[in-house]
């Protein structure tokens, strides 16, 4: 065990995988200079510079050409490589949307299983940092709407390392949405090889009154909210799905079966977001257990404004999460 930051854990998982399998390569803009610090910690020397460790054949600076970058990674994955593509900011993914949807997600299916697509697309969600509407999107719900992609949203250094390693070993395309807000988060992480399976949620905290599903940066906020609520005598069970595709619906359904109440904290936009899907699954499959409305705490349907005066109110935080939980606890179950 060693103290690792979220960012360091991402670097460690990539280094581990590149050591283990020479077919793994990294491509992206400015990866040689490790501008975003995702390849061996913030400094080049720290834990070894990937360019020096693995050479220019496997660490490739690309032109600013997201569309061909994504498509080329897919074509390479279909022909023997296992690329990791660093797309830096999640808001840049749209530039390659056709390749993600029409090639990466669909090829294996359209070709009747002739191809597999072992490729990982990493990007960071830079919300909450005054970068405004062109750098702050949290677009994973759009990709959830398209089958063929697997989606991870790690909320801790341990999950970041374990999920990313699983992703790189996987034969299906994975999109990793990393929350920039969490880059500095530190915890004890196993330095050795370990993998966290996709589709298995993490019960962050057990509780009896309300099930609180929290995604990405909302997890730590949910934990803070739960502390406040405990003091008020409200026992919250916090579930971090860790991957959205596959999604561990059983974990949520089982929890709701016990608590009868559900709040979902999701940093994505509200309409057709991940929270909407989780709400719909429960309303469909666990209706009889529900004692209260299902509440969503999300980013409202707005773009991200530059001014910190405007931005900070927008995301799920300990306060608005706690308020939502109080609401569902106060509602009397029907028939009482």
């Amino acid at each position, binding site marked *: 065990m060693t103290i690792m930051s979220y960012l360091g854990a991402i670097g460690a998982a990539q280094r581990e995988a590149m050591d283990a399998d020479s*077919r793994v*390569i990294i491509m992206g803009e400015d990866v040689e200079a490790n501008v975003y610090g995702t390849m061996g910690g913030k400094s080049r020397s720290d834990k070894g510079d990937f360019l020096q460790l693995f050479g220019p*054949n*496997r660490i*490739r600076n*690309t*032109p600013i*050409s997201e*569309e*061909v*970058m*994504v*498509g*080329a*990674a*897919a*074509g*390479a*994955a*279909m*022909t*023997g*490589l296992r690329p990791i593509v660093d797309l830096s900011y999640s808001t840049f993914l749209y530039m390659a949307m*056709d*390749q993600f949807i*029409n*090639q990466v997600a669909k*090829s*294996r*299916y*359209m*070709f*009747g*299983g*002739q*191809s*597999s697509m072992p490729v990982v697309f990493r990007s960071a969600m830079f919300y909450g940092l005054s970068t405004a509407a062109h750098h702050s999107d949290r677009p994973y719900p759009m990709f959830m709407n398209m*089958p*063929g992609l*697997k989606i991870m949203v790690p909320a801790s250094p341990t999950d970041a390392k374990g999920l990313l390693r699983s992703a790189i070993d996987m*034969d*299906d395309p994975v999109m990793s949405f990393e929350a920039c807000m969490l880059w500095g988060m530190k915890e004890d992480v196993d330095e050795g090889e370990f993998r966290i*399976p*996709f*589709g*298995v*949620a993490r019960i962050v905290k057990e509780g009896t009154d309300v099930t609180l599903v929290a995604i990405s940066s909302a997890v730590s906020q949910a934990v803070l909210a739960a502390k406040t609520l405990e003091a008020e005598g409200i026992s919250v069970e916090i579930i971090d799905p860790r991957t959205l*595709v*596959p*999604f*561990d*619906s*059983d*974990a949520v359904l089982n929890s709701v079966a016990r608590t009868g109440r559900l709040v979902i904290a999701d940093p994505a936009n509200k309409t057709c977001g991940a929270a909407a899907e989780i709400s719909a699954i429960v309303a469909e499959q666990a209706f009889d257990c529900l004692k209260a409305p299902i509440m969503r705490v999300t980013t409202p349907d707005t773009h991200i404004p530059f001014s910190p005066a405007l931005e900070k109110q927008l995301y799920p935080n300990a306060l608005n999460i706690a308020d939502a939980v109080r609401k569902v606890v106060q509602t009397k179950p029907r028939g009482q």
Partner: protein
Amino acid sequence: MTIPNDFLLEMQRRMLRIRYFDERASKMVKRGEIPGTVHTSIGQEAQVVGAAMALGEGDYMTGNHRSHGHPIGKGAALGPLMAELVGKAWGVCGGKGGSMHLADFKVGSLGESGIVGSSIPIATGAALSSKVLGNGKVSLAFFGDGAANQGCLYEAMNISSVWKLPIIFLCENNQYALSTPAHTVTAGVLANRAAGFDMPGVRVEDGQSVLTVYDAVKTAVDRARAGQGPSFVEVVTYRFNEHSEGLRLAVDYRDAEQKAAWLQRDPVKLFRAHMLEQSIADEATLAGLEAEVMAEVDASVAFANESPFPELTDAFKDIYTEPLGATQ
């Protein structure tokens, strides 16, 4: 370069396969035996086969919606292709792809694309893996004059040139994108765009001559295999049929005279005449070849008819390599 006769005969065989296969597919669409529509390569056989046969067995290829010719040109078996067109389980894609999305990985066909331009980055990636793995394989992207105005082509040309990837950008300039004449939506000459990306750009004016096309593409393939990077080859040709079978437009967007002139230059007939002239093959051999291929196409239809339809549950397979687990 001197090409052995059996190779020349194989060229004619593959052109005939495309011709007969597409003629049959056209009939079947009109009879409702093939769902949806098909885009034939009739009239473009020389451009397709000249390029595909300049590649080696193990080389890679991607294509577009005008899709049957590419895998056939690369040597794919006809039965599974025809079964795919009718949506049967024995289809090369199990009936999930259909006419616009044929792929036959056995012959290096990584997939046609119904999205114009979208398969160009895929071919680029195949070239990247050849480069990284050093396995000497070359990649070729077939696309049309219409696709040549999609931005991803230029991203692909730039990155291929910078990384010296073994790839050929093969532009099938049949002078129209659906109803749109290329010159009305295309600035300058496509082949001339290559220079700006620091790669050779060749324009083959006589795309109806399989040997001319072969020579131009072979030069590019040799260059790629030698590690000298990408090339752009534009082949001028003409599609004899409508954009897609069954399509009827109120306007006649193609000049009648120009059309008549091009119909005269049937690549299959031209090469047949050439082989007789050069006594590469005699009448009997060629007639035999034609009969053989016709029988092959008949057999492919029989194979397609024999095939069962896919199971309902097949619709939910091959989305991922493993069951999706928790979400299922």
